[in-house]
């Protein structure tokens, strides 16, 4: 009865390559390669060590957030407070150190704990009230945005952290978050790039190879069904919100210790960039489908386009137009690749 032989007459030919191409991230990968080649061939500086370290740096912080946001989106939720969180943690550490002279490591830890608490609160509100996370985290976003602006002004009288470099032990966390390896002629690979790679790897492992990963897919795909087969929905969702918050903290630290400053409006408006990168990387907005590597490629595409346009010397007024056209192009290519793979897998 169960004649499950390898060669089933109900399947037409199938190749290994097309199986790989069927993964959610494959399209974004192809699109990233195309865009890299385009700018490498049309501009002088893009593919040099100096050029590539610039767009790698730009992509890295966005990439870390995009990966976390992708996990959350696969789990069926949004976090609009993710962008403001990067500013919040950075400002908090900056204020605690420059204004109140707190030990820098303690300040960093305090920021992490607060970020996790806010993430947990987001998750708790979403699960307890039954409101869409889009709205709940929008509320948190507004609140954080106000706190960032008014709090910073009230406490240090200006809207940007200054004098961070003079804080004792500044160099220790700077090594961890803000240092760079020189590379090639004038390139420098920043710490945030390594963090990015690490975060992507861990997220991929969790998604593909752990129980929690299985649950994340199920939460986004059909929460009711997941609940019915015994997935701990509540805990898993709160964990996801805390993950994005933690990523926000990480990016806040990376920003603070590389530039030694953060502004009150840092990160505002970025929340959608993260979502965009995740979607370009193959995540479904409705949840239940996507990958961490895809989000990383999405961020890479975004970063390359953003800097590539600068290298091309096009009028910056048109920047957004080029960005829009390239994004659309990348997503279309992405979709096309996936369709082709579906058809001939």
């Amino acid at each position, binding site marked *: 009865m169960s004649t499950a032989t390898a060669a089933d007459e109900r399947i037409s030919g199938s190749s290994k390559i097309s199986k790989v191409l069927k993964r959610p991230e494959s399209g974004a990968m192809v699109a990233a390669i195309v865009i890299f080649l385009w700018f490498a061939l049309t501009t002088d500086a893009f593919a040099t060590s*100096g050029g590539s370290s610039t767009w790698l740096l730009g992509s890295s912080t966005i990439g870390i957030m995009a990966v976390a946001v992708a996990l959350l989106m696969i789990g069926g939720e949004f976090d609009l407070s993710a962008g403001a969180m990067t500013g919040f943690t950075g400002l908090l550490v900056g204020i605690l150190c420059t204004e109140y002279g707190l030990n820098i490591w303690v300040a960093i830890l305090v920021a992490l704990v607060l970020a996790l608490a806010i993430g947990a609160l987001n998750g708790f509100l979403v699960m307890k009230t039954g409101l869409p996370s889009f709205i709940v985290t929008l509320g948190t976003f507004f609140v954080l945005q106000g706190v*960032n602006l008014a709090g910073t002004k009230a406490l240090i009288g*200006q809207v*940007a*952290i*200054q004098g961070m470099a003079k804080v004792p032990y500044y160099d220790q966390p700077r090594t961890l978050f803000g240092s760079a390896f020189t590379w090639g002629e004038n390139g420098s690979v920043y710490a945030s790039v390594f963090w990015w790679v690490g975060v992507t790897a861990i997220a991929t492992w969790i998604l593909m190879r752990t129980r929690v990963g299985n649950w994340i897919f199920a939460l986004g795909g059909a929460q009711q069904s997941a609940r019915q087969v015994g997935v701990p929905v509540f805990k898993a969702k709160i964990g996801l919100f805390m993950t994005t918050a933690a990523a926000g903290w990480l990016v806040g630290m990376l920003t603070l210790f590389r530039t030694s*400053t953060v*502004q009150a*409006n840092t990160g505002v408006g970025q929340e959608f960039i993260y979502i965009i990168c995740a979607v370009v990387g193959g995540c479904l907005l409705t949840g239940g489908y996507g990958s961490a590597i895809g989000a990383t490629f999405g961020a890479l595409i975004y970063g390359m386009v953003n800097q590539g346009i600068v290298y091309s010397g096009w009028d*910056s007024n048109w920047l957004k137009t080029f960005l829009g056209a390239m994004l659309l192009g990348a997503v279309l290519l992405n979709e096309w690749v996936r369709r082709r793979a579906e058809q001939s897998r």
Partner: protein
Amino acid sequence: ACSGTGKEEDSATTTTGGTKNSGLTYAVITHSGPGDAFWDRVKSGAEKAGADYGATVQYNNDPDPAKQSQLIDSAVASKVNGIVVSMANPDGLEESVKKAVAAGIPVVTINSGLDKFKDFGAITHIGQSEAIAGEAVGARLKAEGGKKAICVIQEAGNVGLEERCKAAATAFGAMENLQVDGTDDAAVQASVTSKLQADPSIDTVLALGGQYAIDAVNAVGESGSKAKVATFDLSEDVVTNIESGKISFAVDQQPYVQGFLGVTTLYLKSINGNDVGGGQPINSGPAFVTKDNAAQVAEFAAKGTR
């Protein structure tokens, strides 16, 4: 491009002047948000200078210091012949600017960064900080008899705008900030109206951009308040309103000058090794436009160069 109605010459970014091509490339990197009228004039000035000298000018901007520093890095990687940069948040740009200087690329700072340009190794600084202009405006408003004022901020958390208001408040006294949503004129007008209705003792409104001055004038009319309106930056409509007395004055920081002189300084450095200013900053303004001199600037305001 546009027909010959006396407007500014065609200003594509990568202009290679009508006469010669010097083969020089300068990057102008500012902390402006997109579509900001003030910085648009800085850009126009820089591009005009580039066109006149046959140099290529690449203008880019980002209000986030992390991204602005990446733009500087990009310029260094592209091996430009000089960089003009506005340093609203000097700490955030320090590393990148110093790297550029170390790579042998001359740097000129404009608009803000007066305190730090020397430390970072820039040739000179052009323009005055937002603080100087703000203080001048505050003092003038006070001299005109203002008792209580609001400063309308159209972009939350913008370092430059905050600094303007702060300096104006220092010189004026009772001045309060009002945050509005600059991308929705109806909301700007409504917010200013509300504020004037809520507190009838407000007798002065300071707007930070030409567009918002118009909204403020409408709001004053609607709320029945007698408040005076003053503004940063010019536009055709602002000049018209100054002439008709609805706006008492506008402060012109002469952004065009900042862009034009920035590129000019670099050009002189390139072709002649000059260090303009000799290590001292160069002031670009501010100039006040009132009913008396409005007619003179009207023509330039219409062109979008003042």
